[in-house]
């Protein structure tokens, strides 16, 4: 039986790395009670809360946290017509937080994710591990059988070419989950009682050319390196699909990272995922996705970007064209999505002009 850490107050003194360079983005529709448990690890950092659902509801943020909060009214006000690209009634709305952030790094976490314990019983500071991951290089060009070579006690194995040992910058750090694993609805229905109790003590780089399912529950990325690719798509209200937001962002991100020579890591840190969502509700949301992903995956596997796509935005716009061309025939949804991808980039560039930072008025505290 795996359990979350219940007493984090006595956690070892935390040195908050990247305190002024990292924002924590949290989508929520209910409350933020879970922050109490994360307090020793999160308190030094600035939070961006994206409130989904009914904007007239007040979300209470625990005392002592420095935050900005945006609800649907704020999103509409700030983006105007471009707000159409931000999902409603789906945690995909969190990507609005990525867009308005002014920091270099983003860590995003779901509000049902608690602090996990490592096998020795110690509370895991997930944010600290993500920062370690993102500040050390990735090694996408050759697989190291001892996993992360930059880790204390590890190294490159015999046969690993020296010319590849500097690695490349890490754009994404993808963490995992103990307790409720990130299964799709059919798997949840077949195995309702399965819990992830296996702590795999590794961080590894996902090789270039290999796609993976990116989960947004416990994710950290470098906004400067890859931010514009982290669009979580059109999900939820009025859309034919849900629970593919992070997947979509992950596939786009990996193709672009591979093209630009950036690294994606997966593995540690673990968080404790406490809530199993209703598999029947999930099945309805995912239903189309299960069929569509059979077309989507080969599309991304075969996607290539021209040499002159040298920025994330250029790559992303090019991808959106290919989505329209090749996936448009699968369903008109992809036409809309391709358009939304362009709107997203427009909005991103507007809110993040290169050079001077644009001042955006905060949501209500």
């Amino acid at each position, binding site marked *: 039986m795996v359990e979350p850490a219940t007493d984090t107050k006595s956690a070892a003194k935390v040195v908050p790395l990247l305190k002024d360079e990292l924002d924590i983005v949290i989508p929520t529709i209910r409350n933020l009670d879970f922050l109490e448990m994360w307090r020793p690890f999160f308190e030094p950092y600035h939070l961006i809360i994206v409130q989904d659902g009914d904007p007239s509801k007040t979300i209470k943020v625990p005392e002592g946290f420095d935050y900005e909060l945006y609800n649907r009214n704020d999103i509409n006000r700030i983006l105007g017509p471009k707000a159409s690209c931000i999902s409603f009634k789906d945690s995909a709305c969190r990507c609005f937080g990525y867009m308005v952030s002014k920091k270099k790094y983003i860590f995003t976490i779901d509000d049902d994710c608690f602090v996990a314990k490592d*096998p020795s019983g110690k509370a895991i500071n997930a944010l600290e591990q993500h920062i370690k991951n993102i500040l050390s290089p990735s090694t996408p*060009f*050759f*697989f*190291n*059988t*001892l*996993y992360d070579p930059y*880790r204390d*006690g*590890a*190294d*490159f*194995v*015999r*046969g*690993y*070419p*020296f*010319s*590849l040992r500097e690695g490349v910058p890490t754009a994404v750090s*993808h963490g*995992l989950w103990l307790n409720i*694993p*990130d*299964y*799709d609805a059919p*798997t949840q229905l077949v*195995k309702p009682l*399965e*819990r*992830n*109790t*296996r*702590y*795999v*003590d*590794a961080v*590894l780089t*996902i*090789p*270039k*050319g*290999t*796609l*993976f*399912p*990116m*989960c947004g529950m416990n994710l950290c990325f470098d906004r400067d390196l890859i931010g514009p690719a982290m669009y979580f798509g059109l999900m939820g209200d009025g859309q034919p699909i849900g*629970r*593919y937001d*992070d*997947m979509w962002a*992950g596939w786009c991100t990996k193709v672009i990272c591979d093209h630009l020579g950036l690294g994606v890591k*997966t593995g540690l840190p673990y968080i404790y995922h406490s809530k199993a969502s209703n598999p029947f509700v999930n099945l309805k949301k*995912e239903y189309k996705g*299960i069929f569509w*992903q*059979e077309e989507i*995956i080969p599309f991304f596997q075969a996607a290539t970007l021209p040499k002159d796509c040298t920025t994330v935005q250029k790559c992303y716009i090019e991808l959106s064209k290919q989505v329209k061309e090749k996936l448009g025939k699968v369903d008109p949804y992809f036409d809309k999505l391709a358009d939304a991808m362009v709107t997203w980039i427009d909005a991103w560039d507007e809110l993040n002009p290169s050079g001077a930072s644009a001042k955006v008025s905060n949501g209500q505290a």
Partner: protein
Amino acid sequence: MPLANINDSEVDIVIGALQSDLTSFMNEWRTIFSRFHLIIVKDPDLKEELKIPEGFNFDVYSKSHIDRVVGSSSSIVFSGYSCRYFGFLVSRKKYIVSFDDDCIPAKDSKGFLIDPVAQHLANLTTPATPFFFNTLYDPYREGADFVRGYPFSLRNGVTCALSCGLWLNLADLDAPTQALKPQQRNSLYVDAVITVPSRAMMPVSGINIAFDRESVGPALLPALKLAGEGKFRWETMEDIWSGMCLKVVCDHLGLGVKSGLPYVWRQDRGSAIESLKKEWEGVKLMEEIVPFFQSMRLPQTVATTEDCVIEMARTVKQQLGPSSPVFTRAADAMVEWVKLWKAVGSGSSPL
């Protein structure tokens, strides 16, 4: 530990003996090895008689067997670590598991003895998933599965042809790396088995491996022999080369390669600094070898493992040959190996 549905009689354990006294080695492995048939191949350069304790079911092959079967004018040299390939050649079993003779069973994080043979066989008899990365690692393991977003059409997986294990204590680092950190020992037990994705290249260490001989036997080959090749792993690259060939073959034929569990305990032996003084060549050669294999694509028409090897040998000779005679010799050895495999490695046992 999931029970592999394999009969013990489908497995050969092949040990290349680089040291003559195998008594303590075999005793350490007794509880695990005693149910299997063992093929022990004595390094032809070893002068002393092999000492093997009682209670095992084994066959020993030495220089005289090798000379008789292979002949004297072979471009393949079965000396040092490469002696084990002779064992792969003469085996008639479906699965082969092979360990270096300076490895003993390890203990897991709870202190229980790990049975690497059982884990290797479990790896080989469950599918591999090379076309899409599963973030919860091996989906066929107890307590795990495919994650959300993993396409259903890829969930059957493919046959796993190679299982690469890891090492506690003395990890398989190259000489410069170990020499820089002489006290470093690997104590990190990572509880995962991972399929190495298609087209991702990796260094396959021969220290702790298992493979499906029936599917890919001819692709594990003794070909790359360094001029200064010696009796320590720091002084060889033969397994790295063999593994790259095998990965290309697997990627081409749609077979899988897994890496991770099981761990073995690798005993301290030799000196990285001494090996470093002696042998640099392997490290330099990797700079050419890796890009070469990464870009290798076999023609669609090549459909068998043997033909894959012949085709690769041709390309090696053409593209790498000009830069070093080591590669030309490797290419010749690869062609010779396929001939040998067809003559000796298939059909009924020659011995």
